[in-house]
């Protein structure tokens, strides 16, 4: 693993343990594993993958030294950064952008219609939750953390939210893909807000890749190779979109037994953008919003990114470099 | 046995009653009639089926063959082991049958005190069963059985764990209650003198499988004394018969 004894010459580890979720927003990881890009790039370094169902468990595993790197959403990354006082992890690349929004019941057409309604978000204080609250505030509606206010915001896990929506127990949900598409396709929900439209360039971070600082320091060469595999996976998705869908779904099936339905898969892919750009500005803005609504203690995110290795790889491949600047 | 003279009503009637536990035959065609107000004592070797007979009469077990009829009368059984309920105080145990009969609380209390008085445990009402000696527990069980106010009283070695003196006292008390309430009593004991002291009839059961082998009518005048020559004499006679019976099986 990424233990001391594994740190070889030239900053190469004998193995790397990579985490990701069996989730469509983690497509680059799914492809990279499915197509073997990571292992090819890593060469003699052994790749061990672990899958998680939720961010907190991935962070727990990362901090406990059970994994070295993981794909993860922006929220757990910020929390992990804050809890470890900026010593636990670094974001080294973007992976996925977009693919979230507010789906509501038939009959709700404007923000004003949401008054007195119940809207689910995946978890208090996560990106979608913050996005919803910020959006509500912009539209003159308030919602408190205990589920009260003009709009009742209810943190619920995705499965519960989907069921509750299907049965009419909630009026809407601000969720990421593939649940967005499933609410639309399976439960006849309507997209009231596509979060894409709220961001300047239409891009906002959904998934990125993080490593422990310790691993990054000890094994920079391995990290570079990991990034190489990551970029190759992204390349493949860009060039072979249809095959990428199939491959991602095959990996999902291998991990979870059941693939996504084709229409959901296609709709989700349409909403998602796979890019190495971590869209740093959206992370900062989102964190700012979270602080504004009191869901995050003020946290200094300076230094959370280490895009050096990524940019080296991008430069080598002749692609534009990315930036961790706020705007 | 020619007890078919129907001067009083037959209260318990067994005709060729058999009982087997699996393959073990405990009672073999026992026929026995107990009339209203009779005090019948049962004697027999250990394991010959006396307790089994009582449990059949009480309806606790089903008979394997024959007919048994008690005419739907209320039966009270005092078990061989005291079998008190540990979660109730002594008084609670005695009051329980009264409670089940729906007797009011003060009335219940009064009756229980009386009964505890009879068994000489007036001061132990608030104790719990585990705080009593073996003989005391047996007496509480007696009080509980008496509290039931049944027509037929079945008693399985009720005084086995008592000293001679306490036994004498309770003999008198039991006789008085039996008289006053016109009870029908079926009384199991190993003490032949006790049987002769108390019974109108003494029934001898054979060794397993139990069968009725003798039926002694006891004709002495009451009140009797356990150490009177009449009682001793007849007891000696019955004891000899019993010994002969048990000896036949002792290989």
């Amino acid at each position, binding site marked *: 693993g990424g233990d001391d004894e594994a740190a070889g010459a030239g900053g190469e580890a004998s193995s790397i343990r990579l985490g990701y979720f069996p989730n469509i927003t983690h497509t680059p990881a799914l492809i990279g594993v499915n197509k073997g890009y990571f292992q090819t790039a890593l060469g003699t370094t052994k790749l061990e993958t672990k899958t998680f169902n939720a961010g907190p468990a991935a962070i727990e595993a990362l901090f406990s030294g059970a994994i070295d790197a993981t794909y993860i959403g922006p929220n757990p990354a910020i929390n992990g950064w804050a809890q470890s006082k900026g010593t636990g992890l670094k974001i080294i690349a973007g992976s996925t952008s977009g693919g979230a929004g507010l789906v509501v019941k038939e009959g709700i057409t404007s923000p004003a219609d949401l008054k007195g309604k119940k809207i689910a978000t995946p978890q208090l*204080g996560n990106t979608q939750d913050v996005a919803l609250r910020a959006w509500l505030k912009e539209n003159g509606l308030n919602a408190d953390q205990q589920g009260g206010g003009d709009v009742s915001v209810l943190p619920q896990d995705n499965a519960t939210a989907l069921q509750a929506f299907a049965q009419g127990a909630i009026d809407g949900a601000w969720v990421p893909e593939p649940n967005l598409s499933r609410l639309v396709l399976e439960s006849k929900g309507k997209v009231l807000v596509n979060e894409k439209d709220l961001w300047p360039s239409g891009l906002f971070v959904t998934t990125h890749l993080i490593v422990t600082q310790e691993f990054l320091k000890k094994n920079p060469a391995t990290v570079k190779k990991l990034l190489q595999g990551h970029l190759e996976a992204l390349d493949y998705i860009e060039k072979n979109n249809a095959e990428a869908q199939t491959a991602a779904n095959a990996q999902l099936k291998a991990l979870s037994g059941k693939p996504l339905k084709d229409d959901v898969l296609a709709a989700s892919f349409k909403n998602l953008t796979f890019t190495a750009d971590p869209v740093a500005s959206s992370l900062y803005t989102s964190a700012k919003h979270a602080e504004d609504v009191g869901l995050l203690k003020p946290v200094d995110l300076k230094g959370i990114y280490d895009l050096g290795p990524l940019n080296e790889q991008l430069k080598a491949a002749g692609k534009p470099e990315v930036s961790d600047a706020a705007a | 046995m020619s007890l078919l003279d129907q001067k009083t009503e037959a209260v318990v009637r067994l005709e060729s009653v058999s009982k087997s536990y699996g393959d073990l035959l405990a009672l073999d065609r026992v026929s026995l009639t107990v009339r209203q107000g009779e005090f019948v004592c049962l004697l027999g070797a250990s394991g010959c089926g006396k307790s089994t007979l009582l449990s059949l009469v009480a309806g606790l077990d089903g008979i394997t063959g024959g007919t048994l009829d008690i005419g739907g009368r209320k039966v009270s*059984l005092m078990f061989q082991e005291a079998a008190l309920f540990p979660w109730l105080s002594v008084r609670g145990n005695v009051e329980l049958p009264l409670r089940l009969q729906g007797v009011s609380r003060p009335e219940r209390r009064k009756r229980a005190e009386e009964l505890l008085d009879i068994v000489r445990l007036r001061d132990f009402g608030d104790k719990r*069963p585990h705080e009593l000696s073996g003989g005391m527990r047996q007496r509480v069980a007696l009080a509980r059985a008496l509290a039931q106010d049944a027509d037929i009283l079945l008693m399985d070695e009720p005084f086995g764990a008592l000293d001679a003196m306490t036994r004498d006292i309770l003999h008198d008390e039991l006789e008085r209650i039996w008289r006053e309430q016109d009870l029908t009593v079926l009384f199991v004991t190993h003490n032949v003198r006790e049987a002769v002291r108390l019974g109108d009839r003494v029934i001898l059961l054979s060794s397993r499988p139990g069968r009725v082998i003798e039926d002694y009518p006891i004709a002495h005048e009451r009140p009797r004394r356990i150490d009177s020559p009449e009682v001793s004499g007849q007891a000696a006679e019955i004891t000899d018969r019993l010994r002969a019976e048990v000896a036949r099986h002792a290989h």
Partner: protein
Amino acid sequence: MPIKYPSARAGLDGASGDTTAPVADKPGVNPESAEVAGLDALELGPRRDKGALGKRVWRSAWPKFLAIAIVLLIWQIAVWSEWKPIYVLPSPATVFTDLGNVITTGDFWDGVRVTMTRAFTGFLLAVVIGTVIGALVSQFAPLRAAIGSLITGLQTMPSIMWFPLAILLFQLSESAILFVVVLGAAPSVANGLISGIDYVPRTWLRVGQVLGMRGFAKYRHLILPASLPSFISGLKQGWAFSWRSLMAGELLVIVPGALSIGVRMQQARDLSDSSLVICYIIVVLVIGILIDVLFNAADNQLRKRWGLLS
């Protein structure tokens, strides 16, 4: 008869516990009646409670303190050894500071109130339902054959699997949470009762039959008291199940108002705040221990009555 000495001295001897025998003043004199009459009254009131009480409290307290001290020590040593980074394994000091901050907010106590209300309501419901089901199942052979084994089956079902059904039946309401709690705890209660009933000594059942107990009276006066030990143990397990189910069930719906303990625990995890996670672990343990103390009090009471505790 001189009646005063023996009973008075018997009390003293118990207190001092020395080895000289209590003697009646004149041999052959019988102090029985007075003594017996006197002791019933004595036993009702608390006896020799001054020094003994302090001693008893101390005897039950020191092992607890020692245990806590040992745990804290090991924990602190693990922290000092820098086995894991401080943000993964925070020091006891950090955690207790955090805990202090948490429990001094009124909000927290509102949450505790909300959660405890749900826990007790759900548990009581579960006890009632479980008792009825347990009594019926143990009474009717066909019912036992039909659903006896289902009870354990239901017990093994993770609470979250009931969410769809809960939402189906109760939408997102307090009732949905209670539904999950009841489904979690009732089987335990029922199983405890069934096991207790199954092991009621046959002699007692026969005594009950002779005393003419039927139907409800039989349950009231015989079956329930006789199976009480097992029933209480079932209740204890039922409480644990109901609490666990509640912690999951509270995530089902957030009723506007105070944040329940279940939600707070989840949030502590979501924030990857290990110190806060440990805080809530401690909170849940303390609540569990307090409830256990209640159960133990009931249990000891029972054992004393049954003569199993001296």
